[in-house]
């Protein structure tokens, strides 16, 4: 196989991927990122690393899928991943919306109960 990417660029790509991975791991270790999200990000960094090492990977896969211009595979993959992740975030958001609503209602009802107990009604 001919050299598709200069070595300098490959080194930069590997360094970037490693930095990104380190950043993700640090967030998880500090407890700032929940494990269920970290799974997605670890997969992303693993893919980045894989393609940094496997220089012809993109071309091979593009050829397999019958994609004429290999870089467009990157965009296809990236946009697809982003859309999926955004939908996932919307799902999480909807769930939290419901949870917050339930909590607020619960709190309001308890607050009323507490007040009733502190000042019993004089009818």
């Amino acid at each position: 196989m001919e050299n598709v990417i200069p070595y300098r660029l490959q080194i930069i790509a590997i360094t970037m991927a490693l930095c990104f991975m380190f950043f993700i791991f640090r967030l998880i270790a500090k407890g700032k990122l929940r494990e269920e999200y970290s799974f997605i990000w670890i997969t992303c960094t693993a893919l980045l690393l894989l393609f940094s090492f496997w220089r012809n990977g993109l071309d091979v896969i593009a050829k397999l899928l019958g994609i004429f211009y290999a870089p467009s595979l990157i965009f296809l993959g990236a946009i697809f991943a982003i859309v999926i992740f955004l939908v996932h975030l919307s799902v999480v958001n909807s769930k939290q919306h419901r949870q917050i609503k339930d909590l607020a209602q619960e709190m309001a009802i308890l607050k009323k109960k507490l007040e009733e107990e502190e000042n019993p009604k004089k009818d």
Partner: protein
Amino acid sequence: MKSRLKVALIIPCFNEEESIFSLFSEIKNTRFSEELVITPIFINDCSNDNSKQILLDRFIEFIDLPVNLGIGGAVQTGFKYALRNGFDVAVQMDGDGQHPPSELQKILNLIINNEADVVIGSRYLTKEGFQSSSLRRAGINYFKWLNKKLVGITVFDSTSGYRALNRKALEIVADYYPDEYPEPEAIILYALNGLKIKEVPVTMRERQGGSSSIRTYKTVYYMFKVTLGTIFLYIRLKFNGKRYSL
């Protein structure tokens, strides 16, 4: 003597300082049949005017929401409260004075006689009182058609927020109640859960203060949201056979 019926009158209010006290005194001055014990409970949905101060100063019973939940969330708070505190019936009523307390007895009669699980006070059965704009009426006709198509029942005033629910209905709405513009969607919810829905003609007034939650520039969004909500709720209940929970 028949046992007395405990009725929670749930009044959600968001910035209704002008109408709260007059509505409260009107309720207090309205005479109901003897077996009814009416307890008005205001739900302060994080108003940013003097609503809360008025409620406190006048010693009016209210539930104070810590964050603004919108009409659906506020009303549901009242439903949950009514269910847990042993009320037999919950009535939702607008906080702006559109729904005259004098019509309450008429709505409750159907529940007292066990003729329905949900009673909707409708302003279109007889052409009396405040009839609202033609645009809103067109929307209401559309919902009438949509309900008829989906669940086969005709509700003339599906956006009316003047409704009474018995305990059977309360159990359902405590579990799930639509958030925004809940009224038309809730009809599907009741119908598909096998509740008996009846409408009674009531005379409504023009709002006494504040502004409607349905403004003209929002109409398109309103129609779209309610249509989507209605259809998805229908699919969810029809094909999953279960009530909705996230």
